[in-house]
């Protein structure tokens, strides 16, 4: 073992010298050209922030026999910590990074050269510029307020986010600990960034101007009140889904989770539905990024995976996109029709996050959340 770890960097640098030329070419290669190179590599490692990587793995290995896709379901927050530690150690474990948490990804992974962008030439002309640069977004994902539609057949039981801070919802709002999952910290950050509309929504709900107390702004005030109202923190979105969505509940809680998890309603016995009409917005919508690891061990297979994840030429993108062609995920490719069961993107009222802006106050909001726990 020891020998191997010592020998590896030497071998690697020799390989790299030769591969720099090859890599420059790979950026332009079609999947057909990549395939033989990828098959020679034989394996590819993907860090994925969604458990759907399991389905991608099966589909990819069927489409491209002879390449073993090793998919690891690791939260974005943890991916960032691990990728940084790995980079510091000079170890490259992953080939493909499939991640959300864009605000942090931009500053801590892209600017530091841990990951690099790749847009498969095959689909480049069918993805709007805003989703190609600085990194390729495969789809837009969400963290929004969801409710149990079985227990609430007439629609969402909440019409204004501020209701969640009232007695009626004490101990009945569920979300993942924002210090453990970056998407949720982005949600909290967006609420602070949207303080002006949060203040208006307060006025609309309670008929009086907001009294900030210790809070610096309406967004912070909301977060403080929400935590004070016995907000329940769990460790994964599936826990939120089960708590909110499970069938047969008399008085189910509401919770912030992914709109697209509604796809599992039938399989899991849930009744999740999005509260799209809640004021001022149900939550956030943000890009899910695919990128290459810098100096990936399997550069051809890595590009092939990203190409696969962008979907094939069939109408709804084929098996690579199938796990993501669901109501609640908004695929960035312009030629793929929107999912028929979802609220159309234009009618979807969630806040679109601005990664650069989020990054400026994200750590501060994280510290605020820390003081509330």
């Amino acid at each position, binding site marked *: 073992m020891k020998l191997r770890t010592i020998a590896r960097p030497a071998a690697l640098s020799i390989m790299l010298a030769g591969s720099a030329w090859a890599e420059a070419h790979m950026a332009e290669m079609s999947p057909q050209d990549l395939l033989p190179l990828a098959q020679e590599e034989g394996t590819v490692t993907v860090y994925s922030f969604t458990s759907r990587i399991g389905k991608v793995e099966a589909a990819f290995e069927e489409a491209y026999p002879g390449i073993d896709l090793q998919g690891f379901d690791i939260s974005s927050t943890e991916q960032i910590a691990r990728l940084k530690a790995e980079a510091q150690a*000079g*170890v490259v474990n992953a080939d493909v990074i499939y991640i959300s948490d864009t605000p942090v990804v931009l500053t801590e992974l892209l600017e530091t050269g841990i990951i690099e962008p790749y847009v498969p030439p095959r689909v480049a002309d069918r993805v709007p510029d805003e989703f190609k640069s600085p990194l390729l977004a495969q789809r837009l994902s969400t963290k929004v307020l969801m409710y149990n539609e079985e227990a609430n057949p007439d629609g969402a039981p909440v019409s204004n986010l501020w209701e969640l801070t009232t007695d009626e919802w004490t101990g009945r709002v569920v979300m993942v600990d924002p210090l453990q999952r970056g998407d949720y910290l982005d949600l909290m950050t967006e609420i602070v960034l949207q303080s002006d509309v949060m203040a208006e929504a307060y006025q609309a709900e309670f008929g009086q101007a907001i009294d900030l107390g210790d809070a610096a702004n309406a967004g912070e005030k909301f977060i403080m009140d929400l935590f004070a109202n016995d907000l329940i923190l769990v460790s994964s979105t599936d826990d939120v889904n089960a708590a909110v969505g499970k069938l047969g509940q008399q008085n189910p809680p509401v919770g912030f989770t992914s709109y697209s998890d509604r796809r599992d309603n039938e399989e899991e016995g849930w009744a999740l539905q999005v509260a799209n009409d809640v004021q001022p917005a149900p939550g956030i919508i943000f890009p899910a990024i695919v990128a290459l690891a810098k100096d990936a061990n399997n550069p051809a297979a890595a590009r092939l995976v990203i190409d696969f994840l962008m979907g094939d030429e069939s109408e709804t993108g084929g098996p690579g996109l199938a796990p993501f062609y669901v109501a609640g995920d908004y695929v960035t490719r312009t030629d793929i029709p929107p999912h028929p069961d979802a609220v159309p993107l234009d009618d979807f009222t969630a806040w679109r996050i601005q990664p650069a802006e989020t990054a400026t106050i994200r750590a501060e909001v994280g510290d605020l959340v820390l*003081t*509330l726990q």
Partner: protein
Amino acid sequence: MADTAISGQGRRVRFRQGTLLKVLVLALLIALIVLPLLRTVLFTLQPDVIKAWSDVLTGRLSTNLFYKPLGNTLIIGAVVSTGCVLIGGFLAWLVVMTNVPFRKTIAVGATLPFMIPSFAAALAWGTLFRNDRVGGQVGFLQGSGLDVPDWLAWGMVPTLIVLTLHYFSLAFTIIAAALATVNSDLVEAAQIAGAKGRRILMGIILPVTTPALVAAGSLCFAGAVSNFATPALLGLPVRMQTLSTRLFGMIEVGQVGRGYVIGILLVLISGVFLWAGNRIVSGRRSYATITGKGGRAKRFDLRAARWPLCAVAVTILLASTIVPVVVLIASSFAPSSADLFSNWTTHYWLGQSNPAFAQGTPGIVHNQDIVRALLVTLGLGVAVAFTGMFVGLLASYTTARYREGAMSAAITQISFLPLLVPGIAFGAAYIAYLGAPIGPLPALYGTFALLVIAGTAYLLPFAVQTGRAVIQQVGGELEESARLTGAGFARRLAAITVPLAIRGLAAGGILIFVKIVRDLSLVVLLFTPTMPVLSVVAYRYASEGFGQFANAITVVILLLSIAASLLANRLQTKSQPWLKN
């Protein structure tokens, strides 16, 4: 000393050799134990990190970052160590000093809970008591129609109960060993003088065993404050944080500086308590259990209380060993923990991937990740057992044969240092230490080697302790005569010490194997997806809400631990004198 070195040929050789060995061992221990800890401290003193100290200790975040978790940690330490001493002491008294029925069974049973990983007990608790606070699957009791209140399902109370039921067997072992040494002359003298049982207990037995009680209490305290799995699994839904869960959370989200500061403070706290315990016991260094005179005193007759006390003991043992094991096994077959004993399926063990179960996760036999984790874990256990016993033997041999001098003292002190360091803090230190390349040496992040080195260092106190006991069994005169015939150090070790001590060494190696295989706190930070170990995989499944898989993996770990422990027990029955009549 310098004079002796020059004065005679034989002496000079001996002095030189001892010194060489000492320097070697000391350097090894410094590299394994001192440097990682030092590296962590230095990391937090860097200009852009040093603010972490004020964040943790004085800033507006300090209450939640440090003081509240500290309060929880201290409550856990105090209550668990008290509970452990009471329960462990009670059982030890029953087994060693009374005529309670099924003495031997109780004695064996009382050592078992420590073999069960504490996260297994926490998972079992969740399977039984989980209520609907966080939704999803409820536990068995809630599923049977009982309304389990939050305080019993989550947070402090379950953490205290689970940890007490885990650590009391540590207290039992220490106290039972001490009780077995109570000189029967004292007890008989008191009996002749007409003292009653209570009087003998308070007047003789308690004072004589106080050092053991203190030692047991402080070890349980150190164990409880550094435990990670139990508060992590039972505390989060009610936002209960301890220092160890905070440390994990901070490092996990990349706030490494704050994490390390919390880790350093955690080391200091458990260090202070162990040191204080040591001070109190320091008058009593000898743990000799077999003396030349004084027979076993007549056992205290419990009379009518025999069976009731036996029932109490059996209840404790059932609750701490049998119930969790049964619950874990049952729940690895039951699709719903609310309905533990019906609709059993072998899917979680043998099933192929099926979208209806846990997002298509296949049963553990077909699950590549788990099979790989099992192999890594077994490899890790064996490797650490070997390297651990090797270093342990080397260190204890050096200090036993070349006792005098500051270097020997340093070797002894350093080799016991990891006892003060909670596993999770040790893991953090090793990431700081070997996570980046040192000079020409490559970084070991994510390698098997890192796990082995960290595991070896972490378990060194146990290895050295076993090594020392073994070395002392092998008389120095055998070696002496070998030396006179010209045998070198390696030769003597290989031809005399090791063969004579192989039984003890094997037993020690097996115990180290068990400790590393069931360990979560050390490896939880060293874990990388490409180098998985079973306990972390189980922990991750549990926090993803896939309880059955977590439980099935835990059953595998349990079987490994228990089988290995029983084997070790057989090899070293001699070290449990209280079992003899």
